[in-house]
């Protein structure tokens, strides 16, 4: 008998079906991966299993855990079950913990709710559980003292404290760096093997799930498209997802010899708070003697974990902040001279941000948003000419000229990134900095966006600086790659060579974390 058995599950929200005919099974000791793009209903499935659906949801069908029908249970019975028989780990470890309690207390809480034990005993068991998840810090620490990966381990400890028979992990590694991601996935795998739990692993990333899951469930628009082992996936949608996750866009130009952007020994220090009343403010060196150059028409990848100084460096390149030492030259001229940024240089650079939701002022219409960089021009186009340029920019990224009258909330994430690209393109810059510009997108949308970037790069002779932690994307779109760690560049070279034959030990570690799709897919 399966541990979890979902048959013909149907969930309606406000009368509209969000899940239809969903069936899946998880056996003890088995890992089932649920894959789908955003809005495919994968998280809703997890919530339906836990019976934690939002108010107003109507749920029909069958959800059986250990033969017990979850839909027939009362809220009281469900509460007894949640945490004891089913544990759940959510995506965002930064907000999943209470900042006012120590991690030991939070794990112990799960135990105290379900079992009649003394507080001391619960704390002792919590400490043991934290050891099991290989957390190297004492249970008396507070969440803010921990890194993202460590917090996610605490969340896992809370979920497995009572050794539940089913663990649901909803995008457990999406918010983490690649190196941390691998550690967390290995831990989950190990826990499943030790405890004989069933694991329902939900992810948008086929690569993450493919090497661990025994069974894969592919979902699309609230329905299960296909269920099976990874190598048996046959459905056209599954294949499309697979192809998109490793998409290589066509590009012609590989760059000329002339350097466009040159960095020489760039140093960026931040002051840290004074120690005591009379102490001197300290310094934190975020970027330490970084030198590299980008040739005209080239795609350069800048790779590193969060906190390595990528974003600081980007701000310096764009002339938003002064550097303490070294020079940054664009086309031979400094981007920041003396006290101010050099406007004539600045108009040759633009940027696309990671988060398609926060990078637009929600109160402006698209036409105004897209034309914002006109501010950099001496004589900005006016009237009819302005309308024409806006229309052209929107059309060049595959949107319609009429879209300029809409507000940003009327667009999907992928469309917003296109608008962001239109905003960057409108003043025809030489260099576009893409800061994780495709990381938040679904694989298929991401593939389209990469094609668009390649196409526009060829058409307008653009140079891209591609900042990302997603190594498989970097491999497929860049000519050269620079690897950064703790403010320094540790390796630099042609993308193919660095990926095939990394010299630096950190680069090797980084490359080892790329989730690989099993051969013969």
């Amino acid at each position, binding site marked *: 008998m399966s541990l979890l058995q979902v048959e013909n599950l149907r969930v309606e929200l406000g009368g509209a079906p969000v899940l239809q005919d969903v069936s899946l099974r998880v056996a003890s000791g088995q890992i089932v991966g649920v894959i789908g793009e955003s809005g495919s209903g994968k998280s809703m499935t997890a919530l339906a299993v836990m019976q934690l659906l939002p108010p107003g949801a109507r749920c029909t069908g069958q959800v059986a855990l250990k033969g017990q029908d979850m839909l027939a249970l009362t809220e009281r019975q469900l509460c007894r079950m949640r945490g004891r028989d089913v544990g759940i780990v959510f995506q965002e470890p930064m907000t999943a913990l209470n900042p006012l309690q120590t991690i030991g207390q939070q794990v112990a809480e799960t135990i105290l709710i379900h079992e009649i034990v003394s507080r001391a005993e619960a704390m002792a068991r919590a400490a043991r559980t934290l050891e099991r998840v290989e957390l190297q810090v004492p249970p008396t620490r507070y969440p803010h003292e921990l890194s993202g990966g460590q917090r996610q381990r605490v969340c896992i400890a809370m979920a497995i404290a009572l050794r539940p028979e089913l663990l649901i992990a909803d995008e457990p590694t999406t918010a983490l760096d690649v190196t941390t991601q691998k550690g967390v996935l290995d831990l989950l795998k190990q826990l499943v093997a030790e405890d004989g739990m069933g694991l329902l692993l939900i992810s948008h990333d086929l690569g993450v799930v493919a090497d661990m899951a025994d069974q894969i469930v592919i979902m699309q628009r609230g329905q299960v498209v296909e269920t099976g082992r990874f190598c048996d996936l046959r459905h056209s949608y599954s294949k499309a997802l697979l192809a998109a996750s490793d998409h290589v866009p066509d590009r012609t130009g590989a760059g000329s010899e002339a350097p466009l952007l040159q960095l020489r020994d760039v140093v960026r220090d931040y002051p840290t708070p004074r120690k005591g009343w009379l102490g001197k403010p300290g310094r934190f060196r975020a970027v330490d003697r970084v030198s590299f150059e980008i040739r005209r028409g080239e795609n350069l990848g800048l790779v590193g974990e969060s906190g390595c100084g990528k974003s600081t460096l980007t701000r310096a390149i764009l002339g938003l902040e002064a550097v303490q030492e070294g020079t940054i030259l664009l086309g031979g001229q400094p981007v920041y001279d003396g006290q101010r940024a050099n406007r004539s240089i600045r108009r040759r650079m633009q940027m696309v941000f990671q988060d398609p939701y926060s*990078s637009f002022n929600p109160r402006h219409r698209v036409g105004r948003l897209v034309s914002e960089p006109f501010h950099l021009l001496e004589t900005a186009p006016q009237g009819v000419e302005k309308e024409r340029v806006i229309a052209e920019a929107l059309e060049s990224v595959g949107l319609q000229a009429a879209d300029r009258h809409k507000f940003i909330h009327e667009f999907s994430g992928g469309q917003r990134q296109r608008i962001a690209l239109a905003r960057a393109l409108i003043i025809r810059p030489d260099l576009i900095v893409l800061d994780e510009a495709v990381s938040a997108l679904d694989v298929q949308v991401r593939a389209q966006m990469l094609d668009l970037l390649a196409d526009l790069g060829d058409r307008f002779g653009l140079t891209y600086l591609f900042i990302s932690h997603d190594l498989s994307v970097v491999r497929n779109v860049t000519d050269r790659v620079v690897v950064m760690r703790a403010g320094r560049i540790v390796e630099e070279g042609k993308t193919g060579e660095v990926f095939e034959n990394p010299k630096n030990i950190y680069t090797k570690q980084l490359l080892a974390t790329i989730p690989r799709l099993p051969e013969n897919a």
Partner: protein
Amino acid sequence: MRRNLILGTGLSAMFAGAALLSFFWVPFDIGALDIANKIKPPSGAHWLGTDHFGRDILSMIMVGGRTSIAVALVAVGIGMGLGVPLGLAAAVQRGGWLDEGIMRANDLIFAFPSLLIAIMITAVFGASAVNAIIAIGIFNIPVFARLTRGAALGLWTRDFVLAARVAGKGAVRISCEHILPNLVNLLIVQGTIQFSLGILAEAGLSYVGLGAQPPVPSWGRMLADSQTMISFAPHMALSPGLAILLTVLGLNLMGDGLRDLLDPRLQRGQR
């Protein structure tokens, strides 16, 4: 949601209209005392009754509304006009000298009980409606400055502000084009709250004799005058009390409605 806006605007418009109408016409002259008819309950001639000098309470409410509404309106205007720019300026560089200077000055004002400051101002400049406006207005400045700064600090970290900086825009322009429009809904809500508090503060100041001076009526003064007679003439306290209550309610409803109306994200469902 539209219902709030209509109801709130209707209530506010009714009191504002009555106050405006009083410039041209009132049922009875409030300067004329009619001791023979003092403390009469509501009747056909005097809809809301008469007070202890025999003045028509309806006329008093209409004329008194002029003072109450004007004081609150100007006081909110002072608070917003000075507080919002100060808050925006403080948010530009968190922890900078400007931020510290503005916020510590704010703390200083907050540290004084508002009534005490009002007493100080009236002690120096004399008790009048104008001085009440100034006293209430000064207390609105830190409220708006603090609210603006807090919300603006959050907005400064958003990517669209970074995008504006990449487009070469300076701090002043970003504050006006990107920060301020995104604070509008907060400011409207806080504005209506401060407006209602302003009416109540004026009532309070007049109640202790520091606001509008006789014979100029205000809702607060009317409440104060009726206090000693509340046991045998409750209608005298009820009318100004209800006027304050309904105006404040109307303004709050209107504020909520306006906030929703001005948010482009909420417009689509209504269209």
